[in-house]
């Protein structure tokens, strides 16, 4: 039986299978879809881990914050004699200033690398380790500076969390 030219072409087309071009396009589409889905899953896992670590960093900063507040409210700071008389240690260590003259208060933060001598009791000193570099996520440790709080003396603490995020605490001295 003789085939018409058009029928012969159709048969040939069916028999020749996929061209290289078609195969490459198919693989490319499959590759793009797989890469997109994989990237989404990996991003989601990364986000979960980041949130967990960030939560831990926040809790570490919160523990330091609560410890400083507890020591302050419990009047447990060491009292040292400075130019202005007897003052709690943080005020002296963080840059004392005249609260009446706001300009005299330091604009820069003092980095605290060591809190030895800030409190009298050894047990309380150990509690302050919550604010030390190994306990906090930032390698900078925490910082402080003397400030004027409505004309009264105060110490401002800045506890790093991560990146540009900080917890800040102002405690009055007088």
């Amino acid at each position: 039986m003789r085939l018409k030219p058009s029928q012969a072409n159709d048969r040939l087309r069916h028999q020749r299978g996929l061209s290289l071009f078609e195969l490459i396009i198919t693989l490319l589409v499959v590759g793009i879809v797989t890469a997109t889905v994989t990237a989404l899953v990996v991003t989601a896992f990364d986000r979960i881990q980041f949130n967990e670590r960030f939560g831990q960093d926040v809790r570490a900063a919160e523990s330091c914050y609560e410890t400083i507040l507890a020591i302050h409210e419990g009047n447990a700071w060491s009292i040292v004699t400075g130019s202005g008389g007897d003052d709690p240690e943080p005020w002296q260590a963080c840059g004392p200033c005249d609260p009446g003259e706001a300009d005299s208060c330091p604009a820069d933060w003092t980095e605290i690398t060591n809190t030895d001598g800030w409190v009298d009791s050894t047990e309380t000193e150990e509690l302050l380790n919550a604010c030390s570099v190994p306990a906090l996520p930032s390698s900078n440790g925490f910082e402080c500076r003397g400030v004027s709080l409505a004309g009264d003396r105060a110490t401002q603490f800045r506890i790093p969390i991560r990146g540009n995020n900080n917890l800040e605490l102002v405690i009055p001295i007088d």
Partner: protein
Amino acid sequence: MINENRRERGLTLIEIVVTLAILGIVAGVVGRPLISLIESRTTIGEAASRQADIDYALARMVSEIRLSSDTETVECPAPPPTDDTVLSIGDSEYSLNSSNGQALLLNDEVLLKNVDVFSCEELDPSLRLYELEIKVPDRSDNYSVRAFKRVP
């Protein structure tokens, strides 16, 4: 004529078997990653939910300690005789109970499931400073936070 007959006769057994075999191979190749994807989605959802539950449990206890009044005594760890109570703040009793698959309970209601360790320590009685710690299975790190009971 022959072609028409061929079209009408349908599929042979060998054609059906080959088609099913190809479908099986395609399903094996595509189905496996698809199942993994669905499993990953479930895992991600559970991990996020678990994290939120732990954060909530800690935040709730910390807030209660911070804001408790003078009449609401914080006992940490709760003194004997207490069955499983680890922390009590006024009328709230937080305990670790193994009858619910080791769960953290608040007044006998489940607050957090699957808890390995829940502890509370009064760091310094004169400072009213407490430390709470939770350890859950499959996590190497502990979840701990400090809470200072404010002066009312």
